[in-house]
């Protein structure tokens, strides 16, 4: 069940982060877009977590250290460019991952075949915004480059093999890097050259080691359910 938890937590946590944009996005269309992406991810999370146990218990009653998501998805939203950089890194990865899973016949094939079509839109959204911000004004270019640079150290963990997820991780990584390079160069941005994992934090979300902002996110996500068990509407 490690696999379903890992993939399910990635989707759940990113969904929650994107939901935080509600009421704060720069334009109404983006508010709607980010909420729609969050909804797709939440749907994937519900199916994946249900494979691992009770979805509500897993989402609302686990402690921080029991979550198995990569550290990339728990990173705070930052400004809009920062969120787009996170979306770009994650959606290009998730698209490649689901493509491989959909082509196999493992337990995730059905979900992956369905979700890969949704994620194609998430990826397109992130790529179009990367081009627009990177090749935009001096200000948008600087902010986009900053987002891409700041999150780079969390990308290595995306390709750390997960037990039970039967894909070619090396191929996934090299294809991700190719796609990323193409988009960033077209956007007049520089592909970061530093290590894809940081010595002190990155690369252990799958083992339950998370970055400092994650605890507060979990507290907010679980607050209502813990205060009012079984609440519904």
């Amino acid at each position, binding site marked *: 069940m490690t696999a379903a938890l890992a993939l399910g937590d990635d989707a759940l946590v990113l969904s929650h982060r994107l939901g935080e944009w509600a009421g704060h996005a720069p334009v109404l*269309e*983006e508010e*709607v*877009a980010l*909420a*729609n*992406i969050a*909804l*797709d*991810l*939440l*749907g*994937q999370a*519900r*199916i994946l977590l249900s494979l691992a146990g009770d979805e509500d218990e897993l989402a609302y009653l686990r402690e921080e250290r029991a979550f198995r998501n990569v550290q990339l998805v728990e990173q705070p939203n930052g400004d809009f460019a920062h969120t787009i950089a996170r979306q770009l890194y994650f959606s290009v990865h998730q*698209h490649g991952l689901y493509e491989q899973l959909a082509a196999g016949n493992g337990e995730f*094939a*059905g*979900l992956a*075949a*369905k*979700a890969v*079509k*949704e994620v*194609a*839109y998430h*990826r*397109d*959204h992130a790529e*179009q915004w990367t081009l627009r911000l990177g090749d935009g004004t001096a200000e948008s270019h600087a902010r986009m480059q900053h987002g891409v640079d700041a999150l780079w150290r969390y990308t290595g963990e995306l390709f750390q093999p997960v037990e039970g997820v039967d894909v070619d991780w090396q191929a996934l990584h090299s294809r991700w890097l190719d796609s990323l390079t193409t988009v960033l160069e077209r956007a007049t941005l520089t592909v970061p050259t530093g290590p894809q994992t940081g010595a002190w934090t990155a690369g252990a979300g799958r083992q339950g080691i998370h970055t400092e902002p994650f605890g507060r996110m979990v507290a907010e996500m679980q607050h209502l359910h813990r205060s009012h068990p079984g609440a519904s509407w």
Partner: protein
Amino acid sequence: MVTWTPLEEELRSLAGSVPDPELPVLTLEELGVLRGVEVLAPGHVTVRLTPTYTGCPAIETMSTDIERVLYDHGMTEVSVVTVLSPAWSTDDISAEGRRKLAEFGIAPPRPHDAATASAGAGPVPVALSVRCPHCGSTDTELLSRFSSTACKALRRCVACREPFDHFKEL
């Protein structure tokens, strides 16, 4: 080829006539989300339903509405199960469904070009331009890839200047 009993045919057409909760101009049959109806024992029926998007919140209302219709028809035990495979596609929307969408002011999804999709030309298939459901012009532009629901994109007609929803291809 699955064979249906006359009762199953009848129950299927009842379940299929339930309107989509978010797009009430379409029935579930026209939307193409109904995957099967099986009578397991007298009065006991199982309906298989597939979601349009994995996170589509309408699926719960669809299930409740199907249950209500079948209970009203004398069934004593109705269970609606969700199936993911094969994945739903906008190609599953019937011709009549597409016509109704356009009439309702929503540009229907374009059919997938099988050749383009299998060649892996890009993550999102690009085909013919989307026609404005108000004036019929093909000169329309994308405002946002995401709109009022997960399944729609927001576009604007360059000719008549009206914004409109487009049921995007999946």
